[in-house]
């Protein structure tokens, strides 16, 4: 791990196709137990169940899906905030799935997170200066006081906060400004990978746009590698280069932004896109095909393709054989035996389709 001596020069161009993180068959099962003293395992919630993906340097990878699909668990596994049940996470060619102690701390320095709620993720008793400077304290960097203050103020300026507010407390800032504090803290150590878990979903629309613009500007200026997790498909389209769609702990479709939004192949991707309400009454002529029912329990997922219980195209094969992620000739990898055709995409009412 080259982490320890890593430093600033992150802005310089890295060639595309250079893989930073490689995830193989990642699995996270949370045990369901019965009994208090003599606990017996009676099952498992299969939150993440065999996820493989690659994150290239300098790209923004979006992960979308509904509640309980495993997108936040995937993020926590990447951060090593949870230990994987199985599979492998390679970070710059090193397996970090089970590292401990000092080596884990070195990994944590390279992967930073922006949290959803800008109210509960900042300690109300600390000044903004010490919140943003805390990563330096933890990793024993910038130990000279003046140096640390200068660096924190530079970060505050980077994210559009007034450096003179160094000694203010979080309650003196609005929601959007607080989220900027969270971004500055995440950027402090110049991480190689930034994970943003629903960074704007707690904000009002006008403020949401301020934070999205900031993140997009930082992406471009600093060449950040970002995993962007959100349930809002319009926001993900705006922010991401590539998008992975998750359903019940698995990736059902992954590919470049344009390909996925213009020609979704998995019936679930199509249904998600068709369900997004569009802020334009003139586009509402055609009826949409809506999914029926609810997401099944991840403790007892359906056999074969996990989507077959709700899929309008399901055939007998779908309930017995699990489809692998494959290239079906439209630019995305899709896990489906009977992917959507152009006609079907138009029929279910996907407004982003070509």
């Amino acid at each position, binding site marked *: 791990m080259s982490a320890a001596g890593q430093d600033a020069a992150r802005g310089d161009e890295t060639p595309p196709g250079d893989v930073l993180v490689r995830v193989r068959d990642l699995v996270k099962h949370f045990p369901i137990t019965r009994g208090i003293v003599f606990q017996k395992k009676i099952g498992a919630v299969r939150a993440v169940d065999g996820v493989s993906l690659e994150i290239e340097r300098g790209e923004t990878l979006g992960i979308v899906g509904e*509640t309980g699909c495993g997108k936040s668990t995937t993020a926590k596994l990447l951060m090593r905030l949870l230990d994987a049940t199985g599979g492998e996470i390679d970070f710059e060619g090193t397996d970090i799935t089970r590292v401990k102690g000092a080596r884990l701390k070195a990994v944590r320095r390279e992967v930073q997170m922006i949290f959803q709620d800008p109210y509960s993720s900042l300690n109300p008793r600390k000044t903004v200066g010490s919140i943003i400077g805390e990563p330096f304290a933890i990793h024993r960097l910038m130990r000279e006081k003046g140096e640390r203050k200068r660096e924190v103020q530079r970060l505050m300026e980077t994210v559009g906060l007034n450096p003179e507010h160094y000694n203010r407390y979080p309650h003196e800032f609005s929601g959007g400004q607080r989220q900027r504090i969270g971004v500055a803290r995440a950027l402090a150590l110049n991480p190689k990978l930034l994970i943003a878990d629903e960074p704007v979903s707690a904000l009002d629309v006008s403020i949401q746009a301020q934070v999205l613009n900031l993140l997009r500007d930082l992406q471009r200026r600093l060449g950040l590698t970002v995993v962007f997790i959100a349930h809002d498909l319009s926001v993900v389209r705006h922010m991401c280069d590539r998008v992975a769609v998750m359903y019940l702990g698995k990736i059902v479709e992954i590919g470049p932004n344009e390909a996925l939004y213009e020609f979704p192949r998995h019936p679930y991707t199509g249904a998600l896109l068709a369900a997004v309400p569009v802020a334009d009454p003139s586009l509402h002529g055609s009826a949409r095909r*809506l999914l029926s029912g609810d997401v099944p329990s991840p403790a007892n997922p359906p056999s074969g393709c996990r989507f077959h219980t709700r899929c309008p195209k399901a055939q007998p094969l779908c309930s017995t054989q699990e489809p692998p992620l494959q290239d079906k000739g439209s630019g995305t990898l899709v896990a489906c035996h009977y992917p959507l055709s152009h006609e079907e995409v138009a029929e279910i009412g996907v407004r982003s389709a070509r």
Partner: protein
Amino acid sequence: MNAAASSPPGEPLLRVEDLRVEFPTEDGVVHAVDGITYQVHSGRTLGIVGESGSGKTVSSLTTLGLTRRQGARISGRILFEGQDLVTLPEDELRAIRGDDIAMIFQDPLSSLHPLYTVGRQLTEAVRAHRDVSRAQARERAIELLGLVGIPDPARRVDEYPHEFSGGMRQRAMIAMALANEPKLLIADEPTTALDVTVQAQILALMERLQRELGMAIVIITHDLGVVAEMADDIAVMYAGRIVETASAARVFAAPEHPYTWGLLKSIPTLYGPREEDLFPIPGTPPSLISPPSGCHFHPRCPYVQPDHTRIDPQLQPVGDEPGHHVACLLEPDVRRRLWEQLGAGRTPEEALAEVSPGAPA
């Protein structure tokens, strides 16, 4: 759906006139709702759009008399079928609430009682307003659960809220609101806590029930996509006031208020060029204790002129478009040209340089 814009003839079902709601607090008086007027006809949907703290929830809670106990000072009139709800005694209001007017709240888990079965809560809603036997009320509860699309309602009626999924709880809430076939349904962020596929199901359900029962709906939301799908007419609220109101088609195609422009230009869309930057509204919503002088939006308005900090704009009709009103001090001609520029993808600054509203047109 989004039919023609003009208001249907006849008396509106609900007419709110110059409603003001103030809460005295230690820090001063909060002007939560500051003189709003709107109306809804039977079978129509009004969307109230605004950010947190714009007064959209307080105005609808007041319609149901739910701010009375919080020490609110209420003035103005809320005419429901000709009866003024502001001055109605509490017991008469209680007879209307849950019967002729029902409400759906944002969070279905905290709006259902965890210790009672869903069926018991539904029968309670029925028996509060109808003189029917327990067995009849239970029949009605099962029928309602079926109506909102809950599978196997005869079994589900005996389950507790925690046994329902998020979408099913929201359906149960809707079933409860519909228990007595209300004439007016107020839905406060009814789908905000839900996933998109479930949201689409719930919105489709509300539209279907509106067609079948002919009720009027007031839907309160911050989501422009949801109002575009649901509403016939839209009222945009800012700092306790309605700043623009028009048919849904009109609000999205030819908005007149700079705040409405800001909202429309700050959301990413599923279509349209992806590289286009968002134009956020600068600053933050104002304090409702000491709102800005003049036009309340002026500190955040890119097109502000010197006298806008002094003069308080009133809602004025826009051109000859029936039902379109806006509270903005810019000249109508200047507004039209600014929106043309914004529609062509220019930034507010570029649009301003092009139009220069200070100079005579």
